[in-house]
């Protein structure tokens, strides 16, 4: 059985690699490859599941292989299969199969036909890695793939303004979710003194003693996992991204935001349930947020006058209920609910264009003007207030802006003295200080030494904040992201038990991607007179090749699993001590922001409405 499980990830991987090679004009072959790949996967899943059911549904869990090992640090791939995986496998495989069949014809002649299907397969790989993951590290791998494929599908119409803007917005929320996972990995690594699997986590006996001593850490780990889950499943306060993600072709919205991607948060909660099962206060917390989300979402859904946002909010309300079911311990109920909700919303979204003809026809024959709803019986002041708040989506979106992004921007604008020309002077000064301290650490007192890593992490954070808020120079922004990585590395170097090879591993991807990205920017500057970050430039229209290369560089620089930096990030965290909370916070925030800064650079230069207006370009509001 164990051996066979590999195929669930191998099949889509092979399909994906193969479809990368295809000519983008050969529609039949491109969609054929996806359709067959996912079809085979589905049939294979059915066989596997039937056999598994017949042979007694024994939980499967095994360690696949270690990607990187050093001391008690072991980044390994772990595979897990149980009834939760089974449900997600069948639902996911079936829906992806159907949607790929649907899209074969639906997307005919669309620019980006190949992009759509390869992204779909890429998503499917990520989805399978997550549902089969047996530990947080493996899950994180799939998590990142899911995040990037979401970004690509939301920004599928990359020549328009709103899809790109919303893709960046969704990516920023996903990134917060990523950090939840990283910090959870960090803490659990300290908690168990090793990298452990979900199965070990579930082994209540082994950590019961631990937990009583570290009950706070236990709660924090749960909260961090919850943060990731809530971000992916659009629970409060991360809700506002879900309707805004509906920018791609309808089938992709259906499968991502109607069904699979949005239920992944619920999956994470179920997978980690044995860990937080005994934390009553945390369970109550999940239930309360679930109730709030459901109420918020259902009220907002009732006032939506566009079909897709209505479906999105209704789905969100059901997911709120699903979270409650999970927290109450009704696993089976939740699983059935997830499947039903995924099926229903996928179909509702796919037929959403029909709503005009259907409802107009219905009204034509049975028109009742000014239909009263339950809200009309409420006191007027109360009714109007709730209505207006629901229409404004309870200000969730603007609160995120005013409370989080705007202060960051204001802070970044204070750093306007930095330019591309002088930034390296600052860099070398601080690095010089850092290195001299590092090699002469006997010179400074022990008390002071504790604060030094935090100090350099803060310098790193400052540089990435500037990178994220820079309005003009692309090169400055890009350099600052690289500089951020160096300061993080420097900061960690002060910690004990530090191994140079770890830093090397971490920085290798950064340096290579940094240089590649830099070359792309230089090349583009040579071709175009003016590139900056003040607006969208849309250069992918004329320079698709530079776009692709630069995108890979962006992935590398934001620690996506294509370079060793991906493991490096986790490794860096493992060197942060349990009590260095501020350091962990700075590094985590840096991690969120450098991903955002990089994606922002990519979006501003290459995506959005093309700055050269010699061809038909959509208005910004379209």
């Amino acid at each position, binding site marked *: 059985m164990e051996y066979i499980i590999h195929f669930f990830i191998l099949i889509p991987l092979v399909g994906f690699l193969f479809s990368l090679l295809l000519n983008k004009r050969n529609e039949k072959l491109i969609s054929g490859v996806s359709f067959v790949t996912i079809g085979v996967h589905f049939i294979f899943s059915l066989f596997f599941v039937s056999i598994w059911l017949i042979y007694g549904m024994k939980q499967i869990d095994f360690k696949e292989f270690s990607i990187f090992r050093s001391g008690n640090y072991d980044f390994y791939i772990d595979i897990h299969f149980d009834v939760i995986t089974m449900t997600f496998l069948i639902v996911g495989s079936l829906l992806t199969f159907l949607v790929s069949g649907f899209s074969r014809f639906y997307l005919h002649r669309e620019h980006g036909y190949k992009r759509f299907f390869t992204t779909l397969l890429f998503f499917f790989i990520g989805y399978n890695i997550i549902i089969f993951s047996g530990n947080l590290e493996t899950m994180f791998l799939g998590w990142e793939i899911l995040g990037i494929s979401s970004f690509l599908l939301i920004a599928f119409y990359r020549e328009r303004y709103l899809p790109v803007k919303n893709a960046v917005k969704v990516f920023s929320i996903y990134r917060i979710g990523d950090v939840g996972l990283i910090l959870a990995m960090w803490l659990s690594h300290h908690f168990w003194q090793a990298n452990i699997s979900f199965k070990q986590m579930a082994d209540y006996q082994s950590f019961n003693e631990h937990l009583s001593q570290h009950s706070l850490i236990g709660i924090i780990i749960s909260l961090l996992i919850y943060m990731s889950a809530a971000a992916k499943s659009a629970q409060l306060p991360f809700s506002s991204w879900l309707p805004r993600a509906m920018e791609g072709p309808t089938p992709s919205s259906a499968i991502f935001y109607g069904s699979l991607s949005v239920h992944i948060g619920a999956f994470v909660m179920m997978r980690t349930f044995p860990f937080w099962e005994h934390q009553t206060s945390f369970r109550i917390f999940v239930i309360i947020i679930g109730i709030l989300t459901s109420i918020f979402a259902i009220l907002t859904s009732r006032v939506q006058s566009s079909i897709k946002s209505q479906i999105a909010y209704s789905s969100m309300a059901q997911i709120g209920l699903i979270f409650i079911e999970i927290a109450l311990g009704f696993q089976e109920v939740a699983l059935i609910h997830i499947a039903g909700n995924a099926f229903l919303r996928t179909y509702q979204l796919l037929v959403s264009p029909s709503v005009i003809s259907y409802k107009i026809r219905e009204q034509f024959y049975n028109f009742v003007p000014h239909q009263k709803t339950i809200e009309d019986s409420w006191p007027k002041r109360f009714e109007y207030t709730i209505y207006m708040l629901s229409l404004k989506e309870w200000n969730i979106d603007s609160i995120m802006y005013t409370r989080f992004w705007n202060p960051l921007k204001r802070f970044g604008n204070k750093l306007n003295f930095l330019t591309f020309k002088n930034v390296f002077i600052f860099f070398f000064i601080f690095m010089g200080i850092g290195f001299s301290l590092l090699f002469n650490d006997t010179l400074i007192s022990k008390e002071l030494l504790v604060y030094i890593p935090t100090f350099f992490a803060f310098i790193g954070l400052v540089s990435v904040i500037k990178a994220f808020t820079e309005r003009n120079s692309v090169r400055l922004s890009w350099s600052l992201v690289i500089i951020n990585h160096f300061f993080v590395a420097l900061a960690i170097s002060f910690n004990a038990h530090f191994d140079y090879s770890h830093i090397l591993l971490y920085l290798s991807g950064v340096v290579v991607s940094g240089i590649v990205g830099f070359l792309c920017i230089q090349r583009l500057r040579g071709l175009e007179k003016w590139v900056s970050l003040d607006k969208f430039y849309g250069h992918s229209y004329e320079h698709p090749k530079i776009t692709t290369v630069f995108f890979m560089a962006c992935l590398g620089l934001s620690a996506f699993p294509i370079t060793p930096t991906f493991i490096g990030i986790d490794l860096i965290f493992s060197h942060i001590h349990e009590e260095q909370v501020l350091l962990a916070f700075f590094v985590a925030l840096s991690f969120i922001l450098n991903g955002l800064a990089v994606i922002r650079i990519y979006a501003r230069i290459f995506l959005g409405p093309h700055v050269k207006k010699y061809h038909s370009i959509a208005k910004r*509001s379209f």
Partner: protein
Amino acid sequence: MEFYKESTYNEINVLKKLQKFLPFQAPLKDFVFQNILLSFQDQEFHEALRKASSIFGYKNYLKLEEFRAFQKNGVISNEVLEKIIVSKYGEEQLVFWLDKILHKEYKGKINSRIGVVRDHWKEHFKIDLDSLVHPILFRIICSYLDQGISIWNFPAGNNGFLSSLRELEKNSLTSFFKNDRAKKLLIEDKCSLSELLEILVGNEKNYEHYLFDQQFAHPGWSGMVAFIEMNPDSLLDKKKITLSELIQFELLLEIDALDSYFTDIWSPLCHKIKLEFEGVFDPVPENEYFEVLSVLQEAYEWTYYDNVLSGLLKSSNIEKITEKSFQVAFCIDDRECSLRRYIEQVDSNSETFGTPGHFNVEFYFQPEHSNFYTKVCPAPITPKFLIKEYEKSTKVKKDFHFSNRANGLVLGWIYTHTLGFWSVFKLFASIFKPSKTASFVTSSKHMDPTSILTIDSVGEVSESGLKIGFTLEEMVLRVSNLFQSIGLTENFASTMYFIGHGSSSANNPFYATMDCGACSCRPGSVNARVISFMANKPEVRAELKKIGIHIPDSTQFIGGLHDTARDQILFYDEGILSKENLIKHNENKLVFLHALQLNSKERSRRFMSINTKDSAERIHKKILTRTVSLFEPRPELDHATASLCIVGKRNLTKNIFLDRRAFLNSYDYSIDPDGKMLLPILNAATPVCGGINLNYYFSKVDNQNLGAGTKLPHNVMGLFGVSNGIDGDLRPGLPIQMVELHDPVRLLMIVEHFPDVVLKVIQENITTYEWYENKWINLIVVHPENKTLFFFDKGRFSPYSPTDMRINSIDNVNTLVESTHLNLPVYLLNNN
């Protein structure tokens, strides 16, 4: 007497101008084809395009590279190009202009005037008003206008947009505004346009420009509001709103956004910026780039026109049919062009006609159980009659997926657990075995085939000011005019069909665009039944006899509906047929069936999912599946490629292959020497065909701004429009899936009559004349006696002859249509 302060800003004028230039945006349920640049139609075509480009930034031609590529591969003929240059600039300038047209580099970047003033908020003050104001503005308007998507409707009455908002703001603990000032201005009603503009803009000189900038940042919503203001009946659930109210509210939101942004008191935009701005409609300087494009556009058009005209001149005269098997009148619609050819091919004794698909009967139709009237005649006509339907036998299908309950919390929980699982089966079936579902819309449901219609007048009974049914005289007038207009006054066959048309599609918000344009984008089924009923009436025939139209007693008329997507014909009232006619009718049905199959084969050459080399029968089955498939964004191609309108005898076109690109209107000049019948034909055909053609033209050349973009990400807003995503502007125009095959050439109107008669006729109606005078449609007259051509230019007709008379002929259409999916040139059809 009071002296008016001299003012550069006139509010009423500006609002009128905005109304005029905003896109014409009817709710999708009644799509109306119209020239997208209608507001420029009082100017010459190329001049108008140049102005519209420079003012609004539209791309009004194909790209220069596209034209040049056409020239290289012969789509634009060099001879035609040179001829046009010579006629425009003279022989000696030929080389000079040729070089510019074919080789000179142009940047092609258009800096539009729209946006210039308002952009200064962003450029100088780094505030992005659009992103702060648009999302909430769109959501509030959409909720106010919503026709039935939201479950909880806009609660504060329907007494006008602003007063409803005022009511909300007064009685709520929260506000749409972040600061007190804007809220106060609204509640205290101190928000006239000029008051608000004074706060925001300051300088009266720039008010107009600012408002244009602001409204054209979201032309879709503004256009929709402007349309609803003018046509409140276009919404089933009527809403009171004016464009001015929308602008006022938007200005308030802008003031509010600026209040939040500037911590201090801020002064109006034009007090801070001391710049002189061009007026929106200041003269637009000439520009060589547009000159080059216009010459290439002409060359592109005339290469095609010449090909068509050569075909018309070379086609041989046809022998008269002696024994007519049956006659059939279709709509002039370009989609019937090929079906008529196949019917004549399958049964060479049949005779076909084309006439606007409302068959000269104009009325409102009220289906049983409905509270609404549907107009079924050309959009400009306002009918005085009502036809009601009784004894309907069919019912509307329900589908829980569209039910509000599925989106509730508790019921939603139940729905997801039960019917949620049913959806996956439906989804599975919809992909592997598509069949009719609630998403399927079909024109055959417009009227129940067995229902009873109130066609006979029942005296002076009226409903909502409409007369129910037609009196005898009213019938005679309509029937006689129809027959005279198509030139059929004798030699009636024993059965004659009036076939209206409509369409079918699944999962398609643009379903209304595909029905009959002459019936206000509704199926023509009721009209076909009504006209047949009238023509069958013995009293009507007796009256017709008096004016020289002899219809034999044995002749019977039958109405029908051609489904242009499914290629099926539904016949009505077959029960009235006499025994002999019934036998013939059953034979005719086989002719129709065969012709429809061949027609679907010809259509299938444009569809990737169907192999055109298959047998016609099998292709027809696949076409049926195609129309019920949820995943098929192109159930049919509608009017794509339509670029000709030919008014004349069938003889003129019977033997040429026009590739479904022609509106064909039957007309016999010989019984209408002074053009009395021609006048209504041109008055109807000109705006309908020209409107369709130019809607396609502009949706194609600037699909991103004048069209609706791709339809795949569309999100339905309020049941009246579509947008991308949830925060986007409404999209006007046609989606790329409908226009991608269209060649953007202006319509060529060809009339068979004497030039002086045609000139007199077109001059009679000023709005019709404008189309030709300003060249939004090109006009050619075929002299009926010697078949010479005359081209209408600068107010008069002058002789014209095509540059290249070469034309190919073919024996078999089937092999031709199997050969390519691209547009085909004109061919002569050899009669065997």
